[in-house]
């Protein structure tokens, strides 16, 4: 995936809500329909888009005891 192609892909992801939704449902199909041609390694990178959770807010630890 050339840098320019990826940047274009990200720009569309950021700026076009409809593209973002379509990408969420079917990333590979959406990229294929966008006209970008990818190598096998690049497809692998794309399939890894749902990487492990990178971060999350920790809920407040507030004790509110249950006494009926």
């Amino acid at each position, binding site marked *: 995936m050339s840098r320019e192609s990826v940047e274009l892909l990200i720009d569309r992801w950021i700026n076009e809500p409809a593209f973002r939704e379509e990408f969420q449902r079917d990333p590979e199909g959406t990229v294929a329909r966008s006209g970008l041609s990818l190598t096998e390694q690049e497809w692998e990178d794309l399939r890894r888009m749902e990487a492990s959770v990178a971060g999350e807010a*920790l809920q407040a630890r507030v004790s509110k005891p249950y*006494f009926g």
Partner: protein
Amino acid sequence: MTGSSVPLDRRIALLDAVAAFDSLPKDALADLAARLREERFSAEQVIVREGELGDRLYLIADGRAEVTSGGRGSLPLAVLEEGELFGEVALLSGSRERQATVTADTHVVALTLSAADFEKLVRERPEVRDSLAGVAETLVMIKFLKQASPFTPLSGEQLRQLIPRLERRGVSEGETVVRQGEPGDACYLVRSGRVEVAVQGPDGEERQLATLGPGCLFGEAALLTQAPRAASVRALERAELLVLPRRVLLECMQTSENLNRAIVELIQLRERPRRDPDVELHERTSSEGETLVILKQPARGAYYQLTPEGRFIWDLLDGEHTLRDLTMEYLRVFKAFAPQVIAEVVRGLRAGGFVQGAEVSAGLLGRGSGAWSVLRQRVRRVFDCQVALPNADAAFARVYRTAVRPLFNPVGQVALAAIALGGLAAFVVAGHEVGRSWHETNAGARLLLFLIPAYLAGVMVHEAGHAFAAKALGYEVRRAGLGLYRGRPVAFVDTSDMWLAPRWPRILVSLAGPYANLVLAGAAALGAVLATAPAVTTALWQFAFVSYVAVVLNLNPMYDYDGYYVLMDVLERPNLRKHTLQWLSRGLPRALRRPQELGRHRVELAYGLALFLYPVVMGLLSMQAYRVLGQHWLSRILPAGTAAALGGWVAAAVIAAGVAGVAIEMYRLRRGQV
């Protein structure tokens, strides 16, 4: 002409009411009416289909039809009723291609004009062509705005009203539309062509931020943040833009909560977030050996956990990197294309106040100003209100140093354990004394004078247990106080600072509350054994009983009590309930098709099952409790059969309420409302 259910005078009247035919004299209208063919369509029948070639114009004489694009139901554009025309877009365009699908909502009677007759009409009457072209252009514009723009959430009617307020502007290649640093009074929607967004750094060097194509909005951030333009935009080729003045954009946003959300999201996805310099960064190692970073926002008391990938993103939040930059860097290092993951991390960090970014002026949006929303907020304020102890941490630290510290040394702990275990043993052996009634002791209601303060003391001791355990381990007690939680009176202690601690100290602090009650119950049970006055003995047994029940209830891991925090920490799964419900609603259907995924989500599967089984168990216990405590009493005033059947109803109500509560929470999580 086929069929005759629409008489000629009615046809003329219908044509006369069409604005495009205003200029036609009566005889021309009569001639046109005579050329119309009548066609009938049943409900749900497709009248014209998008993409097919058009060969006639339609005028609805009776019924209602829906205009959609991309298949029925996928993108509603408009609803057509009696007297409205459709099909003119294809006839006016060179390709003759239908631009939308029209489907009968009800039984529809339409009058149609052939393409040949239509061409003859517009050739002889150019003003009709012009008028119809205007209508056609509106429909094409609605389709454009609906299909590929942030305005998708607006209804067809809202878009129809918006379109006349949009100004068209053609720009030539290289022309600058928006200049960095200037104030903004309008934003722009790209109708055709491409534009480039670029920013000039302090060194004067220009950097390209994005390339935008048809359907993309730009210039909106300056309107909503009231800051100068953050970047320049210039045309990469000849382009057509739709100009939205600030007032028009704000009015649109106020009519649609979804549009509001879409525009704010767009601004946030485009900004260059910067770390808040006051955020503290703490590292700890998970049970799996992974180095986690816990961020603490001292001003808000918020905590955020980052994996090594998240830490990588955090380090790049310097106010210079855009989401595009972050995604490119992430791809380079982790070989994964993850704009969604990165955007979610940045969104979460912004929500917790860990990063600074563009702040949309809340007053401009009018969000949540509806009567229902205001009422909901007020009710929540009444049922969820708290009064916090000022400088709680300093107060607990002082009391801990001066009085409580000895309880946390080995001798103190052995003494507390002896009381807890000794008392528990006494309760097990002689606990049947709990059943002795107040009447038997001749103490009557006077016992309440002991039990109520003792009960309140139990609550305070529970909270103090958490707070002093946190202080003993060297962590902060952020807040403590009294208040209402979902309408229930509570005392509370916030030990969120324990997120900075390793797993076992966190578990100890969560267990310290129920343990304090266990010690108190033990002391009461031992006191009951030693006391000689029957009234005192009974009061102490009853207090011990209540305290043991409180210990069990607070160790319940199904709800937001101490047991839940213990379970989260044992499993090292923060936000376990939220993750479980999210996985059940989104991941489970997929996992059912891939058994190996079920194995990877054993915890969510087990906890999810428990969440749904718990109300069932509680329902059955409620039925049992009713049979023991309530049925006998009710059978005095109700027929025996009815009193017996009520047990089943009690169980059903408890199960239904519990399962519905979990299902609603799941639904709200899926909709992103939590």
